[in-house]
């Protein structure tokens, strides 16, 4: 279902449908639940579905590039923090010494995490870095 601006803000229009990573819905995440030890940080994480819904809303109000960022974000939700930081580091100038290192990261994103948009984005970076000589020693 494609959301529109009429669904926004989701937390107000359909709080019961907004859930954390483990399926706990917004109204269930109360202070008492926290104190009872029933809420973990994972329950407070956004889901790919919520990001897709926000992408739909952004597209509906004429912000296609913002929507694409939310969609790239949706693909990263399941990617572990360490790997995210590793890829970020690799994308910085001079960290990867060759195009292949980036292509390898792209392949992992695609194959392990089904992060197709992110993979293409990294491949585009690899192509650009090669063209602009960014695989050079920096420090």
């Amino acid at each position, binding site marked *: 279902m494609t959301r529109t601006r009429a669904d926004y*803000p989701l937390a107000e229009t359909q709080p019961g449908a907004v859930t954390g990573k483990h399926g706990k819905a917004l109204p269930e995440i109360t202070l008492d639940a*926290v104190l009872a030890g029933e809420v973990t940080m994972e329950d407070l994480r956004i889901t790919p579905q*919520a990001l897709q819904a926000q992408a739909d809303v952004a597209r509906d*109000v004429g912000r296609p590039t913002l929507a694409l960022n939310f969609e790239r974000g949706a*693909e990263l939700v399941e990617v572990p923090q360490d790997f995210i930081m590793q890829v970020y580091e690799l*994308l910085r100038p001079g960290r990867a010494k060759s195009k292949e290192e980036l292509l390898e990261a792209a392949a992992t994103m695609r194959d392990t995490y089904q992060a197709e948009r*992110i993979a293409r984005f*990294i491949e585009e*970076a690899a192509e650009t870095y090669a063209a602009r000589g960014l695989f050079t020693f920096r420090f």
Partner: protein
Amino acid sequence: MTPKLNRWKRFADWDERPLRLDKFAAEDPANGFSAFSSPADPKPGIGITGGRVVSLDGVLEHDYDMIDRFIARHHIDSDVAPEAMALDSATVARWLVDMNVPREKLVRLAHGMTPAKLAEVVSQLNALEIAFAYSKMRARKTPGNQAHVTNAKDDPLQLAADAATAVAFGFDEIETTMRVSRNAWSNAVACAVGGAVGRWGTLFQCSSEEAEELRIAMAGFTSYAETVSVYGTEKSFTDGDDTPWSKAFLAAAYASRGVKMRCTSGAGSELLMGFHEAKSLLYLEARCLCLQRGMGVQGTQNGGIDGAPLTATIPGGVRELMAENLIAVWLDLECASGNDARSTESEIRVGAKILPYLIAGSDLICSGMGSILKYDNSFNPSLINGEELEDYLVLQRDFEADGGLTPLPESRAIELRERAVEAIAAVFEELGLSTPTEDMKTSVVYASGSDDTRSLMPRDVSFISEAIKERGITVIDVVKALANRGFREEAENLLNVVKLRLSGDYLQTSAMIRNGRIVSAVNDPNDYLGPGSGYRVSEERRLQLNDIRDVLDQKEVLRSEALHEKDEARHIRYRNLGPAASGSTNDDVVIGISPAFGLKLYRTTAGHRLSEVLGAMLDAIRARGLKARVVRFRHTADTSFLGLSAARLAGSGIGIGIQAKGTAVIHQRDRQPHNNLELFSNAPITRLEHYRALGANAAAYALGEMPEPIVVPQRGEAMGSRYHARVALIYAIETGLTEAGAAPEEVDVTLTGVKS
């Protein structure tokens, strides 16, 4: 002999002004010192083949640098570009300031414009037009503001207290950073807790190293990030240790963690980093902003930022800062519009810099304002700081412009600071991080800045900070600690902020929280189409803006006069002797007093007792061997008419008119009312010796002499701003007692000479 000098002394005076500490740079495009245009700037242009952007602003695809490449692939909408680029720039510039051309139409066109085109269009607008266009084009209707909350010791107690205070002033976002980078985690917890005191919904960020900042966000302490910098030349970008792709990846990473993010860019950064390519500041900024839209970030912190002081040294630099902000909002980005670096030592330049933003409104007018004192600002002083925050509150009131802040009563500030300090101390104790003493806490509650505190020092803080990081303490632990120690409301508030990331509603453009609800460009879009549309200050909000401290009203004036009434009763008695007659001999001077003189009003605006003022004048007149009579007039309260009426009753033809507030005049029987002999109009600086001299001069005129007129020296005080509100209220008390045609009354004055 007066010696000849080699300079006009006025220049020496000017040398002493704070303005002369500012240094100004010559326009020099070849060296990057050019605000709006440089010979090296490209002409706008685009080539599109089969939907692919094959040339951009005169650069062919195979020559693209990485910025061109990113803009061509991710910013340019090739369906819109042919139409947008073909438009005459002057026409588009006129549309930007045409209230009948809707924002949506212009935003769609911007999707198809190159950096050079955007720069060429906004260059055609003067400063007023830029401000107007900004007001029309900004994304969210309701304006907001952001505060810096830092201190020179990284003291978490003070951070909590200052965060709570900033929240109470109404800031929608607070941003902290550290003196010592390893203290980031402590700063984050302290501001998160302080920011949860009083109400919920203030977004918070802890500006630190990219990877660390994301980790802190993951632990739930922060809710947004904005120090993701981009640059307008390839070499600056790589020296900034990033590329458009690495930054865009980071943007997606923040989204994936449900954390709001904006980028940062601003004029002057490329110039400071030495890779400006001899391009103008505005053109380079247009590149940065197209990049940011292409990256898909919802917004930008833009408007010079760290480069603002440098930009302000260049001719047109401040106009350029406004122009780049306009491009940002035209590209439909949330704009945290700078005004966050002290770009001048001149308070006039500070006020002038902020005004267009205050009256135009902005998503975040400052990014941010120093809610703390200048020396406590770990980002460096902001344009406006804790010292000047009240000036800003008054500017809001003056212009009835919503700058996002609300005056905060002192008692409420103390209450919130106490609560915040107790809350963070409780969290630290509960989590075994630190046990702040009562003295530490008390010193922070009442401190204006860290010079006044006896609290935790940077080294103490490092232990706390590293423990938070190493033990993997998260916001859930802090929420529990708060609730367990009785800070249930704060625990709820903090939890509510973290819950925002579940729906991601606040990831949309220009999102903030007001009264517990999301307000963004999606559900609060700027709909400006002329007067009556767009953001308007509601009556309720206007009353809030008006409610600054120490406001005078008539009740207040009468209350303070009543305090003096008893005191005066011990010094003087006025006895009405009936209708006053004209003097029959030429040896008298009449002092005409006003209707409320000594009856309702008892002190001059300079604070002198009316008994002393009257006594000084009577003594001086009698000292010359003349008779002095006192007559009360009730037909007028005007000084000139009091004086002239007195002169006409005087046998000598010389009279003094005096109002209760101390304004006085020496008059002569046959003169026009407003053509007096001597006027003492600056009552607030008129001292007893002046009244004595006035009496002496009146006597001299009565004796046919030509005395040296009394000049009450003034040093340029803004007398009107200091006294006119009070004067007008006092004068209304006088005029309220007047009665048309009332006869003058002879008054017997007895000075009882009691000294208190």
